[in-house]
């Protein structure tokens, strides 16, 4: 499953949408009785006359009533589904922004998600990307700092003409730091 939604997202999306239409149906039900006269008359002929009249106007009145209710339902749905779609679109937008930040070389941040957001697993994965590459880059930085320090030591030793043993130790430290850097970078396939 690619879309990891917040708990009950699907259920509440279903229920809230259904409740809107249910309310619309209830209003339509009341509207039908409001649109037509309450009494059919006292005599057989008056009932027949009203029934005939009812038959003539029934379709258009009910169609207009449902059109108005339908418009209200669509408006309510637009608001409701704007919120529900935002719970996917919002995190997706922020993930894109975060990816752009990483592309600029910024590995400092964490991805912020809101409690009701979806796609939290993708946000976690992207956070892991940031922390993994940050760890690699920091390992390289540490290695370079160590090499820089040792090379300064070697420069001093060479100028002072100190013992071979001290030079060998510094050279070994440099080689060891270079290997650590190599190891950190070899984990990344480019």
């Amino acid at each position: 499953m690619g879309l990891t939604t917040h708990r009950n997202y699907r259920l509440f999306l279903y229920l809230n949408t259904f409740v809107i239409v249910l309310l619309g149906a209830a209003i339509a039900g009341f509207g039908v009785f409001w649109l037509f006269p309450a009494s059919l008359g006292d005599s057989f002929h008056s009932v027949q006359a009203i029934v005939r009249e009812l038959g003539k106007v029934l379709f258009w009145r009910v169609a207009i009533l449902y059109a108005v209710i339908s418009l209200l339902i669509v408006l309510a749905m637009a608001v409701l589904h704007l919120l529900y779609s935002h719970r996917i679109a919002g995190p997706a937008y922020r993930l894109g922004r975060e990816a752009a930040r990483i592309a600029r070389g910024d590995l400092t941040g964490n991805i912020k998600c809101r409690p009701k957001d979806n796609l939290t697993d993708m946000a976690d994965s992207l956070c892991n990307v940031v922390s993994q590459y940050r760890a690699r880059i920091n390992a390289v930085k540490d290695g370079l700092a160590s090499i820089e320090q040792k090379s300064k030591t070697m420069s001093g030793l060479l100028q002072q003409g100190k013992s071979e043993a001290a030079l060998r130790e510094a050279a070994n430290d440099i080689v060891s730091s270079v290997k650590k850097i190599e190891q950190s970078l070899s984990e990344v396939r480019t």
Partner: protein
Amino acid sequence: MLFGKHSKRKIYFIKKDFQSRFILRFAAVATVWSAASVLLFFYLANKKLEEIRYSSHIDIATTSELLMPVTIGSLAVSLLIFAGILGYAIHTLLHKLSGPLGQLRRDIARIEGGDLTSDIILREKDEFQDLAADLEEMRTELRRRIARIKEQQAMLSAAAAELGRSVQEGHASSQQVAALESAVVRMKEGVHAFQS
């Protein structure tokens, strides 16, 4: 991952195409329900009126008595059908979103594992094309920057190896140390392109 308690939403219509399609799907289902309800109501009500028109005895006094069973019946049937169609619409919508998001999640996991070689591309009609483009940009930039560091690392390794050999053979020179320092400086430039 942090959960930002104080980060309030300001713009709700953030991915217009995706959100428009999301909203339209449900608006279309509701509109179909409405049209179907009218037709069903009209069909049942007309049938009832026809019955009354041709009956010799009428025991209905009000429109409520006449139209209530028809209204309730038509609404109940249309709501039942709507419930089914709504469930299907939500299922297909989330299923449609799952494919590209699953693909992107796998792509991110691959990058997390250190593989920057594979492109991040979705199928043409998939949702989240812009997110895929952002992730692809991230991958190519990471790849470019790390490839550059790797090139500099090769020079650093060569300089370190040469210095190590010279030290072992007892003829290390200041020039070799300077070459190593120069390789370190170049590599630092590449590494400092990252803020970590």
